[in-house]
């Protein structure tokens, strides 16, 4: 899984996205919002990369840039070794077909006026599956894969439950035989029992189709369940990336650590307390003002009595251990998980 020779399918370098910079001519500068700030990472063929972060950290924006439905402000995106900008016409359409997006809300991502058959056939037709028996066969196979039956083909989306719709959305994405799936919180609108069904479906699809998946989620448990590697975004910046185990069990960035400590353990026997927690993840978009984006909420910085470096020098993403990279000046000093409880108790009070 963590093999270094694994071929890279997506490579992002210095990707930055500002909102409010385009469209309106007369716009005041302050309205510009940097949703993504100098993000560099690669996605390998066949892996599941989990992308986690708080609300507004830029997860969706990154996903949309990958599938090409949002233009980045600067930086490069390479797909299969080719910059996506150089793709034109047929090539570009092929690219878009090979990278499919699944949205969070299964209720808005299906056209209420089209039957499931109509929706799926359109995708198959786009891939070039000829009409008639062959298409019918492909349709049947597809439905079976996502756990729906043929009887449902001629129904309209509103006749389905959320879980079923999410399956349909997945099936639609699969009609064009994609190699990459960008899934934006695909289960967060679903109920626990249904969520499990859909997560299982992801597992089996990946196994069967060898899909590469970017799994966008705010739920660390979901990321932990599906991902080979996990990337952590904070206010538009990539703060840590590494294998699942590295990030979940031996994270080196204080932000990642904070997220982990905040998640309820699910075990009533272990009393929880959140020594690392304060402040809000307000996406003020003013990242890049010099220091570390996390410095205002950083427990580690507090524990180290606020070293100046955190606010004057922007930490770069650097290799910590093999595949693990983190952007913290003191990454090596972040206590390992077991020691967290012994960290000098920083104010647990909620402040803003």
């Amino acid at each position, binding site marked *: 899984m963590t093999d270094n020779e694994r071929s890279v399918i997506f490579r992002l370098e210095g990707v930055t996205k500002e909102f409010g910079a385009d469209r309106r001519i007369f716009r005041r500068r302050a309205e510009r919002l940097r949703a993504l700030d100098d993000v560099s990472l690669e996605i390998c063929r066949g892996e599941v990369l989990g992308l986690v972060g*708080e*609300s507004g950290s830029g997860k969706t924006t990154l996903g949309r840039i990958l599938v090409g439905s949002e233009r980045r402000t600067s930086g490069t995106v390479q797909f299969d070794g080719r910059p996506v900008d150089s793709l034109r016409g047929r090539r570009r359409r092929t690219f878009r077909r090979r990278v499919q997006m699944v949205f969070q809300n299964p209720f808005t991502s299906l056209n209420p006026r089209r039957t499931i058959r109509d929706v799926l056939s359109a995708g198959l037709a786009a891939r070039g599956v000829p009409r008639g028996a062959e298409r019918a066969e492909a349709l049947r196979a597809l439905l079976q894969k996502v756990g729906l039956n043929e009887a449902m083909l001629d129904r309209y989306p509103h006749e389905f*439950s959320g*879980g*079923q719709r999410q399956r349909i959305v997945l099936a639609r994405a699969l009609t064009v035989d994609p190699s990459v799936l960008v899934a934006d919180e695909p289960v967060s609108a679903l*109920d*626990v*029992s*249904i*969520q*499990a*069904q859909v*997560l*299982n479906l992801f*597992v089996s699809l990946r196994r069967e189709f060898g899909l590469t998946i970017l799994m966008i989620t*705010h739920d*660390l*448990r*979901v990321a*932990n*369940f599906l991902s080979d590697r996990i990337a952590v975004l904070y206010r538009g910046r990539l703060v840590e990336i590494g294998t699942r185990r590295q990030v*979940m*069990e031996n994270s080196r960035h204080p932000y990642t650590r*904070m*997220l*982990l*400590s*905040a*998640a*309820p*353990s*699910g*075990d*009533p*026997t272990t009393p*929880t307390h*959140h020594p690392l*927690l304060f402040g*809000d*993840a*307000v996406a003020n978009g003013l990242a890049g003002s010099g220091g570390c984006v996390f410095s205002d909420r950083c427990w580690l910085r507090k524990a180290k009595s606020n070293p100046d470096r955190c606010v004057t020098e922007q930490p770069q993403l650097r290799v910590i251990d093999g595949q693990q990279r983190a952007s913290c000046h003191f990454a090596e000093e972040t206590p390992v998980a077991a020691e967290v409880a012994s960290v000098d108790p920083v104010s*647990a*009070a*909620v*402040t*803003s």
Partner: protein
Amino acid sequence: MNESQHSPAAIDGDDLLRVENLSIDFAVGSTTVHAVDDVSLQVERGEIVGLVGESGCGKSTLGMSLLRLVQSPGSIVGGRILFGGRDLMELSDHELQRLRGQEISLILQDALAVMNPVTRVGEQLTEVIRDHVGGSRAERRRQAVAALSSVGFPRPELSLRSFPHQLSGGMQQRVSIAQSMLLEPRLIIADEPTTALDVTVQAQVLELLKDARTTHGTSIVLITHDLAVVAEVCDRVLVMYAGKVVESGPVQEILQAPKHPYTAALLAALLPLRGDPPTELRALPGQIPQPDQWPTGCRFHPRCPLRQRLGNPQLCSTDVPTAQGGPAHWAACHFVSEEGAVASHD
């Protein structure tokens, strides 16, 4: 029908809230939806009771009914709600108005959506005081400031002047908690108060609820779909499925040894945060039933893994199960006694 059998026994005089055989129907077109069906529960002073279940199982409807507020076309069709010994069903409109906010208050999922967008936070806090206890303007203001600082606002005077949308999601939820605790109510109903929030904010909010309990002895009914949250803050938990309570008991027992196959399935679907995940989840098949088409007999029977393993006994689809087990921890399942049936599933 009879899970209430145990309830009277469970009641010692200390119960703040006692709900007996409550049923709530919605008239949707020509059909009637039994959103809450013969539900009983009790909440002790200073107790945090979790109410878990999937979408549409009637959690919110039940929660709202505790304020005697059920949205039309819904209505309470049976049962009693006793609060501090008083029967809520007998109260006049005026008494109810005094009760709400002052003795029982409500926190909802989307804090922004429940705040009046055009008035300042300060006014929204003080108008509650005004409508309940009156008092001078300065006094009301002082109370509002105190409430805000108690939920961790470093500069409450400043925040009083903000409009709701100018606050972050976490701050909004904290304002709404401050508002619900303004008049130090005896019971707070928190309907998914953290569902829309990030884990970091969720942790802070849960912390605040626990604080309220310890400092004022407030009782809390926490409605959620997240067992991990329940595990973290609740003393007791009720699991609902399709308008009925299927299991009730102390948190620790339920999480470690669930009696009802549905509870067990929920637990199985709970993903681990640490350690290697399973390669596949044991997911419940099928879908959550539609409220206008609850299955007959045990409402869980079409999806029940236990029933399947037992060779689909007829009983499940014909007879409504009664509560099995002790008064402290019971489950409504015909086969709860099947030794190890649930455990082996886990």
